[in-house]
Each structure stands twice: as structure tokens, then as C-alpha cells.
């Protein structure tokens, strides 16, 4: 108990007395923890419910059968009549839009309504209410979450058509949202042509799933995939790992910046209490008590920061989940975020994060405190002197770490994760932080004369105070420079990516008008249009050429990808698609015509280590085809990867002349307005959207910006933490150096001069942090573009300086840093000189 009492008196009471500084440090930890928690919660929610509606409708099925382009109906018949005690269920799956004030995209599932009671209610064992109705052609059953009741009328947009249905029943007990429809109308509305999207099988436990799979494989053609139910979902979730990893790492930046600030806070405590430490040691306190005391202080800050961070993280996750879900939908697959669940695991994670980061950051200064010899405790300036003489040693260590970082940057990904890339980034940040003391002292020496001449004594004093408090200055510059580096690196990466995408769009978007079904598509959703549309459009006098694209979902080596068929003749003439080999588009597309050959997108090639000349074996419908890879093309439309072949080739394997997208090239001299009017006349009565070239680009850039919105939020958080830290540290500096400020008043300094000293200090800190931060940011951006992005997503990004964006961001950070000194300056000018001098 005496130990606790002493801990309260010597550690907690001072924390409480300096409320502003304590609050700022706790805030720094809280924001770091909040960023991590928000991203974890958002990531979990965004992918946790991936196709949850479809998953919950699988009932107790344990095996699933799938095929690219759909399963031929005879396969279902074979499985259903196989001599095994199996329950076999057919599925057609797609998406429909419920028309209304707010259009909602909802999964639509075709099932055999009358025979599938056991599956329909997710194991409840009952047929859906209303299932006995005979007019099932225009009937749908809805999950209860959609808010409809039996007998309601519902207007649905499916592909390029709209139709009214009657709600025949409401299925309760379902998580998520879904529309159920009988197989026959679903086949018709969804244009499946007798093919199924999935067959679900309930197999008894007499054999293992693997054994059943092996057994059933004999009854189906080679192209059909039989796997444990949920395998694809698991694989898709796995595919998201790299994305979540990158987001997670970015969220840890705020925490790392917070770590710098805790280090600073505890260092300040140690420096300020050297005298007290000396007395305590003289009175018999062992070293371990001093160490424990300061670690205890850090733990309190960490615990408090952790608790606040969890609460803040939960609040921030509401916004974060929307941003993350939007990115997931843009790049990976359709999903609807699940409710955010702050479980005990996350609470524990937040507390552990807060405490660990606080204790780890405090270890150095706490250890230093425990080493203080009583006799030395009075010697002021000694520790700063030590920091100064070690700067060359630290610079040498920085060089060593930078070398290791360079080696790490040359290593391959580990299981698709750029582990060495992250290690390189971490080592670069540490190396940069170790170089800061040298940078500060060199800057102080080199610029003293100039600063003094140009800005006067206040700037000189500020520069000397910073150089004199080298250890603390280095930590502060390190924190701010890390935040600025990440801001710069991500800014350059996103800016370069954006510019690359804009240039790429210039190449591929050559047509004047683009048509797509009004039902929103997605990276894994390919709504179709009537096959007549391109034929009718080709007859228009305004149209010079009509290109069309048909996409299918496909799995290659267990990963989802898109298989596309386009008219290679038109594409060769019209598109300027760039290939990694540098070959001309015309030459490559000509080789595609009528042959079993494909071109693959760069992300696909990177994921599957594919190169030109390789043979890809693709499961297409019931068949397996072998396709030679002609070349690899730059593509930024999907992270999952795309395989493209000529339409004629594709339709030798898969059915479906209905295109997903149609591009219309207008004749020279025909205005876009006239062309659009002509196209819209053809489309009359069909739910097809027509977009002009410019509008499509604009939309694409909007999606791009939305995709990266979450990174901007995380960067802003890291910068806010760092700027808060600068304010907190300057406040600490004022408290710590109050004697000097008092002395300056004795020597004739005016209030305005004291204020200017603090503002100059903040300005110098900001300038140093900007210099080292931008330099480090440039290094990190190269790492992000050429290593981390390449290994995570497989895109080639052309380096580009987003000068204006960076300048504006850095200026805002700089101004914020200077403004953060206003409150400490106010405190400094309010010090009573006689009192602070008398304290000595």
C-alpha cells in the first residue's frame, strides 16, 4: 500500500496537475488506438457479411457445384439421380434493384420454391409462407429485413428490364436481405438459358466431404467445380487479406506517431524530475522503483488512451465501414456491410495496443531515469549533451538500417503479402528518425547566422533551444516527419495512381457512347442487355462501329477473376490498349481472332505468375479449354484480374450472346448529342443507361477517389496526432524551460518576443519535419509504388508528383504546426518571472 500511495503522490498527482499536457498525450494515444479499432471494425463488418444473404440461404448444404458461365441443366439431373442419399438443390443467383424512392440492390435467388422448404428458411425446416400459391411466375418471397409484407406489390429492375411482382410471402429468420423467386421465372428474367449458377448438395456424414467430392466428380464433366460449400466465399475473403493488411498498416501509423509522443512525454517527465529522482534515490529508492514509477505513468496514459480510443474507434468505424465497403465493392466483390460488432476481442485489442505502445515507448526514458545517479541529478544539460555527442553514432545506425531496408525492398512477397516491403518501410522510418539529431544540429549550425540576421534574436533563441534540447527535438521532428512522410508517400502514390488511371482511360475509352444495364453492375456482377441491342445499334446511320463486351465470373487457381469476350476485330482497330511487351494493340488483337488464345491483365499475371506464351487451362461451363497467353495488358479496372478473349472463341465454350456493355463509335461529323438521341430511340422501353465518354471518365475518377478516401482519413488522423503532439511538447517545453522564459523577461524580452520564440520553435520544428518527412515520404512512395502495391495488387503505377496536392497538404500541416504553438506561447507569456526564477 505505501508503494501505491507513493505512486499516487509522485506519478499520478503530477499527471492530474498538468491536465492540459496529460490530456493531449492521452488524446494522441486515443487517436492512434481509435484508428486501429475503427479500421479493424470496419474491415470486419465490410467483409464479414460478404454475400451473407446467399450464404444463409444455403441451409445445411455442405457441398457446392459451380461452373464458369453456368452449370448445364443435365448436370443437375445427373447429380439428382445419382445413386447416393443426397439432397440436391438448384440455384440461380444474381442481383436486382428494388425500385422506389431509395433504390436498393438486393441479391435475387432462384430456387425450386415448392420442393425446397428445408433450405429456404435456413434450416427452419418449413416452406416459406405463401409457397403453396400457384401463380409463382410473378411471385417473389422476401426476407423480413426488406420491410415488405405478403400481398404487397414490388417493382424490380433485373438486367435491362423492369417488372412488377407480388410478394407471396415473407421469409423470417434470415440474416441479411434477399429476394427469392422460383427457378423457372428466375431463369427467364435473369437470362440463364437453362443453366444454373450453383448446385447445393446436402451429403450425409457417412463419408467425408473430400470423399463425397471425389465420388461426385465422376458424374460431372471436367469443367465443373465441386467443393466444400463456402469454399469460394473463403477464397474471396482470403483475397481481401492484402487489402485489409495495407489498410491495417496505414491505421498503425497514427499509433506509431502516438508512440513518439509518449516517448516525448515520459522523457519530459524524466528530465523535469531529475532533481526529484536524485532525492528519491538518495532517500533509498531502488532503481527498479524509479523504472516502475515511470513505466506506471506510461501505463496510466496508455490505459486511459486505450479506453478513450476504443470509444472513439467505435464512433469512427461508422464512417470507416462505408468507405471500406465501398472500396471492397469497387475492387473485389459485392457485399453489404454487416452491423459493426465491438466484441471483447476488440476491446482487449484496443487496451493492449494502448498499453503496449505506451510501455514500449516509455521503456527508454524510464530506463534512463532509473540509471540517474543521485549526485548527477542536479547536473543540468548533461543528458542533452549526451544526446548531442551520440548523433554520429545514431547516423551510423541509420545508415546500417537503411542498407537492411534496401535489401528488404528487393525481396519477394510472402504468401501474397508484402511483408518485406513493410519491414523496409518500418526500417526506413526508424533510420530517418535516427538521422534527425544530426539533421537538427547541422541545420542549427548552418542556419544560425542566417536565421539570426533575417528573423532576429527570437529565431536564434528558438533555434538554439531546439538544438540544445536535441533529444526531445529529435523525437518531435521524428513524430511529425513520420506523419508527413506517410502523407507525402500516400499522396504521391495515390496521385501517381490517379494520373496513371487517367492516362489509361484515355487509351481504353475511345468510344463516344457507352451502354450498360440500368441495374448497377459491380466487379463480380455482370447484368446483361438484350442481344438485339448491339445489332440494332449497328444499323444506325450515326454509328460507325459497335463494340460489345460479355463478362463472366471465373475462378482460376482458386481465385476469382473476370473472363471477358470482346470483338477482337473492332478492339484491334479502335482501342489503344497498352501491353507490357510494348506490342501494338492491332497486332495482338488480330492474333486473338478465332484462336484459343487470351490476353490477361497485369494484376492477373502478377497473382498467378503468368507470362506471355503460358497456357491457361480454364474451366468453361462443362468443358476445360487450354488458352495460350498472347500478352499482358495494363488494366486498372479490377484488382481481381481479367482474362480477355475474342467473342467468337468465348461462345464456342459458353452460351450467352447478351452483352454486359456496348460501346458505340460515332461517324465523323456526328455530334455526341445527335448520336445519343439516335441510340436512345433504339433503347426505348429498355432499362439501359447511356453514358458519354466524358461522363464515364468522371464517374470512374469519382469511384477512384472514393476508393482512396479512407487513406486520406487515416493520414489526416496521423497528422492530427502529430500536430497535437507538437502542441503538447511545446507546452512541456514551456513548463520545463520556464526559468529561461522568466530570465528572458528579466533581460528585457517583451511578451511579443516570447510569443515569437515559441512560434519560431514550432516553425523550425515544422520546417525540419517537412524536410525530413518529404524526403522519407519520397522513399516510401517509391516503396509503395514499386514494391508494396506491386506485391499486393499487381499494378504498374507511373511515378507522378501531385505537386499542388502535396503543397497544399504540407502547407496546411505547417500552418497547423505553427498554430499549435499559440497556447504554449500564451502560457509562456503569463509566467511570472520572479516566481520562476525564485523556484531555482
Amino acid at each position, binding site marked *: 500500500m505505501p508503494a501505491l500511495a507513493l505512486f499516487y503522490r509522485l506519478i499520478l498527482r503530477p499527471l492530474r496537475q498538468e491536465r492540459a499536457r496529460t490530456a493531449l498525450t492521452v488524446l494522441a494515444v486515443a487517436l492512434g488506438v481509435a484508428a486501429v479499432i475503427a479500421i479493424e471494425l470496419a474491415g470486419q463488418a465490410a467483409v464479414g457479411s460478404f454475400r451473407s444473404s446467399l450464404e444463409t440461404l444455403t441451409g445445411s448444404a455442405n457441398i457446392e457445384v459451380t461452373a464458369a458461365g453456368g452449370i448445364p441443366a443435365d448436370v443437375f439431373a445427373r447429380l439428382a439421380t445419382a445413386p447416393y442419399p443426397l439432397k440436391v438443390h438448384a440455384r440461380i443467383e444474381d442481383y436486382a434493384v428494388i425500385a422506389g424512392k431509395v433504390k436498393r440492390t438486393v441479391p435475387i435467388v432462384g430456387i425450386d420454391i415448392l420442393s425446397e422448404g428445408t433450405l429456404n428458411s435456413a434450416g427452419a425446416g418449413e416452406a416459406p409462407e405463401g409457397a403453396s400459391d400457384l401463380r409463382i411466375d410473378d411471385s417473389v418471397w422476401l426476407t423480413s429485413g426488406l420491410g415488405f409484407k405478403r400481398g404487397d406489390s414490388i417493382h424490380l429492375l433485373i438486367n435491362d428490364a423492369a417488372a412488377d411482382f407480388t410478394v407471396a410471402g415473407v421469409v423470417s429468420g434470415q440474416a441479411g436481405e434477399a429476394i427469392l423467386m422460383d427457378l423457372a421465372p428466375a431463369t427467364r428474367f435473369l437470362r440463364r438459358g437453362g443453366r444454373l449458377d450453383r448446385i447445393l448438395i446436402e451429403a450425409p456424414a457417412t463419408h467425408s466431404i473430400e470423399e463425397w467430392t471425389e465420388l461426385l466428380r465422376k458424374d460431372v464433366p471436367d469443367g465443373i467445380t465441386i467443393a466444400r460449400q463456402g469454399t469460394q466465399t473463403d477464397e474471396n475473403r482470403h483475397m481481401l487479406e492484402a487489402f485489409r493488411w495495407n489498410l491495417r498498416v496505414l491505421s498503425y501509423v497514427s499509433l506509431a506517431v502516438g508512440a513518439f509522443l509518449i516517448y516525448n512525454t515520459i522523457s519530459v517527465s524524466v528530465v523535469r524530475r531529475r532533481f526529484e529522482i536524485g532525492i528519491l534515490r538518495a532517500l533509498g529508492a531502488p532503481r527498479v522503483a524509479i523504472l516502475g514509477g515511470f513505466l506506471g505513468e506510461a501505463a496510466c496514459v496508455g490505459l486511459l488512451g486505450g479506453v478513450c480510443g476504443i470509444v472513439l474507434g467505435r464512433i469512427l468505424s461508422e464512417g470507416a465501414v462505408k468507405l471500406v465497403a465501398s472500396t471492397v465493392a469497387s475492387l473485389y466483390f459485392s457485399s453489404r456491410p454487416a452491423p459493426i460488432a465491438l466484441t471483447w476481442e476488440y476491446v482487449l485489442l484496443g487496451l493492449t495496443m494502448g498499453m503496449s505502445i505506451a510501455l514500449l515507448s516509455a521503456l527508454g526514458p524510464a530506463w534512463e531515469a532509473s540509471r540517474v545517479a543521485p549526485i548527477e541529478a542536479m547536473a*543540468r*544539460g*548533461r543528458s*542533452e*549533451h549526451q544526446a548531442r555527442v551520440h548523433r554520429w553514432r545514431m547516423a551510423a545506425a541509420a545508415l546500417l538500417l537503411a542498407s537492411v531496408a534496401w535489401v528488404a525492398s528487393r525481396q519477394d512477397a510472402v504468401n501474397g503479402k508484402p511483408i518485406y516491403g513493410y519491414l523496409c518501410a518500418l526500417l526506413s522510418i526508424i533510420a530517418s528518425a535516427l538521422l534527425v539529431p544530426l539533421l537538427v544540429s547541422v541545420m542549427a549550425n548552418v542556419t544560425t547566422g542566417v536565421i*539570426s540576421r533575417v528573423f*532576429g*534574436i527570437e529565431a*536564434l*533563441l528558438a533555434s*538554439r*533551444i531546439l*538544438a*540544445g*534540447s536535441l533529444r526531445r527535438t529529435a523525437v518531435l521532428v521524428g513524430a511529425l516527419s513520420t506523419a508527413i512522410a506517410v502523407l507525402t508517400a500516400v499522396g504521391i502514390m495515390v496521385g501517381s495512381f490517379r494520373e496513371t488511371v487517367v492516362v489509361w482511360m484515355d487509351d481504353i475509352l475511345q468510344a463516344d457512347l457507352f451502354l450498360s444495364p440500368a441495374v448497377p453492375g459491380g466487379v463480380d456482377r455482370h447484368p446483361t442487355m438484350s442481344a438485339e441491342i448491339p445489332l440494332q445499334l449497328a444499323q444506325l446511320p450515326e454509328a460507325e462501329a459497335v463494340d460489345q463486351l460479355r463478362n463472366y465470373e471465373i475462378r482460376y487457381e482458386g481465385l476469382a477473376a473476370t473472363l471477358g469476350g470482346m470483338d477482337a476485330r473492332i478492339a484491334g482497330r479502335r482501342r489503344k490498349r497498352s501491353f507490357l511487351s510494348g506490342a501494338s494493340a492491332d497486332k495482338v488483337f488480330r492474333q486473338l481472332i478465332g484462336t484459343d488464345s487470351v490476353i490477361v491483365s497485369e494484376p492477373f499475371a502478377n497473382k498467378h505468375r503468368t507470362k506471355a506464351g503460358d497456357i491457361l487451362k480454364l474451366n468453361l461451363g462443362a468443358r476445360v479449354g487450354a488458352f495460350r497467353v498472347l500478352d499482358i495488358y495494363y488494366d486498372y479496372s479490377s484488382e481481381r484480374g481479367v482474362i480477355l478473349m475474342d467473342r467468337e472463341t468465348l461462345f464456342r465454350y459458353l452460351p450467352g450472346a447478351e452483352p454486359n456493355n456496348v460501346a458505340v463509335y460515332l461517324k465523323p461529323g456526328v455530334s455526341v448529342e445527335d448520336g445519343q438521341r439516335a441510340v436512345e430511340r433504339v433503347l426505348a422501353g429498355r432499362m439501359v443507361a447511356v453514358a458519354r465518354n466524358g461522363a464515364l471518365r468522371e464517374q470512374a475518377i469519382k469511384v477512384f477517389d472514393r476508393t482512396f478516401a479512407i487513406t486520406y482519413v487515416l493520414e489526416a488522423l496521423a497528422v492530427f496526432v502529430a500536430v497535437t503532439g507538437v502542441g503538447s511538447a511545446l507546452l512541456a517545453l514551456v513548463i520545463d524551460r520556464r*526559468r*529561461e522564459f522568466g*530570465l*528572458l*523577461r*528579466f*533581460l*528585457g*524580452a*517583451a*511578451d511579443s*518576443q516570447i510569443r515569437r520564440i515559441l512560434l519560431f520553435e514550432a516553425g523550425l520544428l515544422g520546417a525540419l519535419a517537412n524536410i525530413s518527412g518529404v524526403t522519407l515520404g519520397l522513399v516510401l512512395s517509391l516503396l509503395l509504388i514499386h514494391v508494396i502495391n506491386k506485391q499486393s495488387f499487381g499494378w504498374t503505377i507511373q511515378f507522378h508528383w501531385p505537386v499542388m496536392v502535396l503543397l497544399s497538404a504540407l502547407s496546411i500541416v505547417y500552418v497547423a504546426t505553427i498554430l499549435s504553438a499559440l497556447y504554449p506561447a500564451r502560457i509562456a507569456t503569463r509566467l511570472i*518571472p*520572479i516566481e520562476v*526564477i*525564485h523556484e*531555482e
Partner: protein
Amino acid sequence: MGILHLGHVSKDYVTEGSPVAALHDVNLEFQAGEFVALVGRSGCGKSTLLNLAGAMDFPTSGTVLLDGVNTSNLSDFALTQVRREKVGFIFQSFQLLPTLSVIENVELPLMLAGNKQARLLASERLSWVEMDTYSSRMPYQLSGGQMQRVAIARALANGPSILLADEPTGNLDTTTSELILALLRRIADQGNTTILMATHSMEATGKVDTIVRLQDGRVVDLTRVTQFSEGR
């Protein structure tokens, strides 16, 4: 009128709700070049008197006239100007800025006052206290006596009319104290600078022109060893 005039000066502090008289009805007047020792026990009001004389604090009642100017009537800006131009401070613990070199410490008040000749004047002051060879050193590289000499050079930087020294030899050994006192004596004699020195040292009183003995905030004795007249 002398360089410093205190007329019926009282100073009360409020401690834990009740007023404590630090100085009570003090009437003093000092001339240019006068070297004055303020003696008395701790808490008798020596430091308070120095702070009032240096315009760092203001009397509760009475007037402090520094070179004929009533410090209580001055704005913050004017007070800063007075401190810069007329007053120099010397402290027991030297109070050199550890991050500035010797010459930079001396330059400090000159630069705060915007003096363009700061380096030149600082060098002169340092050579005056025989510390010019140490100008590029840092404070932690100096002995106590050397630090105090630098502090004196700094106090003299702006050519003040009055030098206020609070226990300037309190942290020094006897020999070094002797040297510092001799230096202060020289400053008073050659620079025509009034020096008010709070001290416990009996040796120090042997070097001064006037001894003011304080007790419980009152002047109980004033001994003029040397007679000073206005305009000496």
C-alpha cells in the same frame, strides 16, 4: 534626485488568503555609482526590494522612481524598455542559458533590444570582465566564478544605470567571491553604475559604499561608508 528613489514603499503578498507584508514603508534613495549592500535574514525583503527596483514588480503603496520615472505608471511596453535600457540583473545561480555560448549569452539583452552592434558590444563587455578568451565556450564548460563574470558582462550589456545583484557570491568560494566583489566595485567606480546587492556575506559589506539593513520588511539601519551626492 538620485538614480533610484523609493518613497514610502510597501509591498504585501497574499499567502493562503491573508496578506503578508514583504516591505513596509521603505524610504531610500541611491545615487549614480553608489554600491549598496542590502543585508538581513532570509525573508527580510531584500529580493522584493530588488524586484521593485528593477521594475519587475510593483509596490502595493508608495512610489518607485527609476531615473525619475514612476514604474507603477508605465505600460507593459514601457516597462520592457526600462528593463532593457536602465537595469541589469545578476543572480545567485548565474542563470546563463545553457544552449547559448558565452558571447551569445552576453549578446542576448542587446539583441532583444534590437541593438545592431550586439556582437561588438558583447565582446567589449566580456573583455571588461576578462572573459573574452572564453567567448565561444558553452556555460557548462565554465567554472562558477567564470559563469558569474559572464552573467555580470551580460547584465552590463545594455549599459544600465542600475545593476541589481541577488546574492551574486552565494554560490562561490571565498576567493572567487573576492574577485567578483572587486569586479562589481570596479563597475561602480568606473562605470558610474549604481549597484544594489542583496547579500549575506560580511566580506561583501566591506566593499560597498552603503549598507542597508532590513528586518521584517523594514529598513532598520542605513550606513553610508562613503558619502555620495547627486551628480557625483
